[in-house]
């Protein structure tokens, strides 16, 4: 780690949430955070869709759209200010459908934000472009179009949230991937996407969760834990499990997202 590393490993102090914190307010906060990322994706999608005729400049265009957001994420937010949406992002870009750019393979116009001690890239201070051709450990993945973050938006024409999961392509870290189809008429020409760094999402949400009296757990629809104030139910585990039966928890959907706030029954009241 270089001393000038832009992403400090220690958790930053984050403001205590204002007002009374409830499971509902936590769910609303999660909804708002993701709504802001979706709105950023909307802008990128529109920017790419509008420029479509000029395919040669696709990479330049995508870079100009996503890199500022990734670099903004490197700035340490002021302790008392809520972190900007961009500060959650560790990677972003556009993955073009095979026929659109290359003819055969999916084309990645994807950038990573500044990284600290990344096993593949080391420490980087600027944005770096993903070069999949050099990642031989991904060769076993026959077709990237089979992966959830591409296949689902292609099949449903809807924005999709993948994860949390360990991303072995880019960051080798725990992330949530948001992807949105970009269409030209009937045809999907690719997906715009953003990777939310779970570590940074935790920094934003944990103060809210800790303000609740009982254990509170953010899970996805498969029950995968993203953030938790219950030590026996850490990130990566699935709720329910043997130790934590489904009956012990109330589930509250986070609006506009596939995530749920799980609170333990009987410990919610103050």
């Amino acid at each position, binding site marked *: 780690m270089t001393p000038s590393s832009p992403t400090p490993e220690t958790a930053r102090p984050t403001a205590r949430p204002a007002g009374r914190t409830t499971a509902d307010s936590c769910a609303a906060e999660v909804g708002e955070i993701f709504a802001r990322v979706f709105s950023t994706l909307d802008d990128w999608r529109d920017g790419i869709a509008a420029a479509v005729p000029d395919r040669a400049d696709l990479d330049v265009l995508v870079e100009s759209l996503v890199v500022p957001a990734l670099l903004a994420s490197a700035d340490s937010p002021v302790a008392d200010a809520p972190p900007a949406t961009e500060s959650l992002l560790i990677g972003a870009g556009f993955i073009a459908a095979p026929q659109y750019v290359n003819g055969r393979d999916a084309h990645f116009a994807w950038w990573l934000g500044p990284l600290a001690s990344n096993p593949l890239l080391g420490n980087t201070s*600027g944005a770096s472009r993903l070069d999949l051709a*050099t990642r031989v450990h991904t060769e076993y993945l026959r077709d990237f179009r089979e992966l959830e973050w591409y296949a689902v938006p292609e099949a449903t024409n809807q924005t999709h949230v993948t994860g949390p999961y360990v991303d072995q392509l880019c960051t080798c870290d725990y992330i949530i991937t948001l992807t949105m189809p970009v269409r030209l008429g009937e045809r999907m020409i690719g997906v715009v996407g953003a990777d939310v760094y779970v570590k940074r999402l935790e920094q934003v949400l944990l103060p809210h969760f800790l303000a609740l009296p009982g254990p509170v757990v953010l899970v996805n629809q498969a029950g995968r834990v993203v953030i938790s104030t219950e030590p026996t139910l850490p990130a990566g585990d699935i709720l329910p499990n043997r130790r934590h039966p489904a009956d012990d928890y109330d589930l509250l959907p986070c609006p506009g997202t596939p995530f749920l706030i799980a609170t333990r029954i009987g410990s919610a009241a103050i």
Partner: protein
Amino acid sequence: MKAQLRPGAREAIFAQLIEAGRAEQVARRLTDAIILGVLTPGERLPSEQELARRFGVALITVREGLVILRDAGLVETRRGRGGGSFVIKADAPHDTLLQARLRGLAQVELSDLAVYFSTIAEGCAERAALRASAAEAERLDAWLLHADFSTTAAARTNAGGFYLELAVLSQSARLVREQIRLQAEFGPLLFLGLGDPDTRALITGLNGRIALAITRGDGQAARTLAADQVRLLGEWLLTMKARIERGGYRDDAIVADA
């Protein structure tokens, strides 16, 4: 930043070295990469200065390492503009190199490598069984169903892929990183046994049973099966090393169809 010009798993090849015998280590790292095909025939290696910086060694050490590679007939050095060290286009598979690599490692080192890799793989498999959702287990099955293990080269790629998928399913970023690092450093060696059709068939069969254990959420079974799998690979290496040391090595045993 220069490092950004060549990102990738191949970065692991150039990660810093720490111990003595550094010129030999430089040569070994690059040799493995050439055997595996991470560095491809005709490709130009990074400059000597760049290699020195990446490995964290002196320029003279890199030069000594490159001399070893030149003597082994792996790279050639061209002078002038557009010059540098290039990976030599080999007509035959580098099987003599594999022999040399097996000779260069003591039995105790080989068996220790197998113990370490097994420990990582067992942990990944057990955690994957405890943590994979039903949809993820199905995806692993679907991938495995279509994964090609019929040739040595395909089996090596997909065996590495399978272990990496187990790490991904464990939900541990550290295990994923360690799996990538181990495969970059020792993959060509570890998966040598896949050149043997019988070993390959056994490994492939165990893949299916590990996937089944993951579907059932049976962590202990997944762990035991992963250990069995790595033990096969390790025992094959030790058997082959003994054969090479006795002088009874057959060329086609290691690189059947690579």
